[in-house]
């Protein structure tokens, strides 16, 4: 059995069918990028992995267990914005993850245990390139720094999958390139399974090991809501067991040729 099994899921809001007949198998460690026209249901799909929405039909299992119908610590998320807590400093935002774990009653750690988790949090800040910003509140950080913090926060729980919904959509192109390096570094180090929505096709090709295109295969002009989108292209962008960055580069090169071929077909 695969790590994640998506078995013929449909999603419907009232009369509107958003997704239909979506099936896929995902192995641990894959980095999947999702593209598709606006409103085609990418976020809806991500929400079903997150647990805030459930499929109208079909099922999604992770490790052979249906995805719970509420968010949990095994599935981390980074939204386009509002992902970090504005009332906590950068460091506190990260420590919070440990406090939830270790202080069920007060949600706050003191003394020796706080010192311990502070060190972990500081290491995480360094990993995402945010050393020296411990005491700053999120509003005092740039958009890119806030997203770094959001990623760091999601990683504190060592989730099995990391869900990213256009995480760099609001950032400048230059900063985006830095963020791409960061997310690749994190993916290599942690081997976390990533699902990332992007509206930038190039970004999708560059980052992922596998690209999904969501689109409608059937369309009725009389009833535009009668049919939903599904995965129309499932393009492998290399192999998931690569270990080094060099190999990623090679496989990305390899995938580029593959893509041009697919496009010409």
């Amino acid at each position: 059995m695969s790590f994640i099994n998506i078995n013929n899921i449909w999603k419907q809001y009232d009369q509107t069918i958003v997704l239909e007949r979506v099936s896929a198998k995902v192995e641990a460690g894959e980095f999947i990028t999702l593209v598709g026209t606006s409103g085609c249901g990418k976020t809806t799909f991500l929400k079903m992995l997150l647990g805030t929405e459930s499929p109208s039909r079909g099922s999604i299992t992770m490790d052979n267990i249906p995805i719970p119908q509420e968010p949990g610590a095994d599935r981390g998320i980074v939204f386009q914005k509002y992902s970090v807590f504005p009332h906590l400093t950068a460091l506190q935002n990260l420590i919070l993850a440990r406090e939830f774990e270790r202080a069920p009653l007060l949600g706050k750690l003191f003394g020796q245990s706080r010192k311990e988790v502070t060190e972990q949090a500081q290491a995480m800040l360094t990993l995402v390139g945010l050393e020296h910003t411990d005491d700053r509140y999120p509003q005092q950080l740039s958009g890119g720094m806030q997203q770094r913090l959001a990623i760091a926060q999601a990683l504190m729980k060592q989730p099995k999958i990391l869900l990213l919904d256009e995480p760099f959509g609001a950032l400048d192109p230059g900063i985006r390139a830095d963020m791409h390096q960061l997310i690749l570094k994190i993916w290599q180090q942690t081997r976390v399974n990533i699902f990332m929505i992007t509206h930038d096709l190039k970004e999708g090709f560059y980052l992922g090991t596998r690209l999904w295109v969501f689109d409608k295969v059937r369309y009725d002009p009389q009833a535009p809501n009668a049919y939903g989108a599904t995965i129309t292209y499932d393009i492998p962008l290399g192999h998931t067991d690569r270990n080094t960055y060099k190999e990623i580069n090679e496989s990305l090169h390899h995938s580029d040729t593959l893509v041009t071929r697919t496009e010409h077909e």
Partner: protein
Amino acid sequence: MKRLINIRPSPITKVILGALPFALTLLVYLWASDIRLAENPNDKLMPAFSSFFSAMGELVFEPSQRSGEYLFLQDSISSLRRLLLGVILSASVGLVLGVLNGAIPVLRANLSPYITIVSLIPPMAVLPILFIVFGLDELSKVMLIFIGITPFLIRDLQSKTLELPSEQLIKAQTLGASTWQIIIRVMLPQVLPRLIEALRLSLGPAWLFLIAAEAIAAQNGLGYRIFLVRRYLSMDIILPYVVWITLLAFLFDWLLHVFSERAFPWFHTSR
């Protein structure tokens, strides 16, 4: 010439413009009072400033012949005690119920319609009931303030809790937080500065209810004194008391604001 909406006063002009209405009010009063006193030296409606000082001097510095108390001090302490008790009680209940209502849909379904209806009851209409149930002394006055402002606080804080971006609550859950942890670490700290804002808005009504209750049944208090001396047309006491109450109201408002800026810097930098 710039558009009027684009013309901004310099800091000095701003101070002058701001002070102008105060100075004008004062001047108009002095002028009108002079005219009236020239016509009738015994006029009670617009006393001269000297009358204020002599009348207030007695209340402030000389113990009352009947009770031996310093009346102005006594009035201030009684009123402030009632006001603070009422406001603190309301703030605590408003915060707890507001956040819980905002956080837990089942509780909200249970309590929200009830609170909405209760908040529509005019508090002054139930004042007689308060006097009957809680007696004529302190408790009924505190309760009037409580009944007057708590429903507003609950509803306001409930909506402020609901306004927190759902992304935050989802994020907290992906960090493994329980309902309780989300309430105390995510919702409560973010609602606290909004409680201060709501309190600043509630202080006006709180004073209103306090003075109304004191006017109707009390042995002391700022409102009691004003309504007592009204019988003798003692504007020389009423006006300074009104100014004093206004000053206290301003002071509280300012203190709350300063406290909020100190305690919740993140809240004030975000705007």
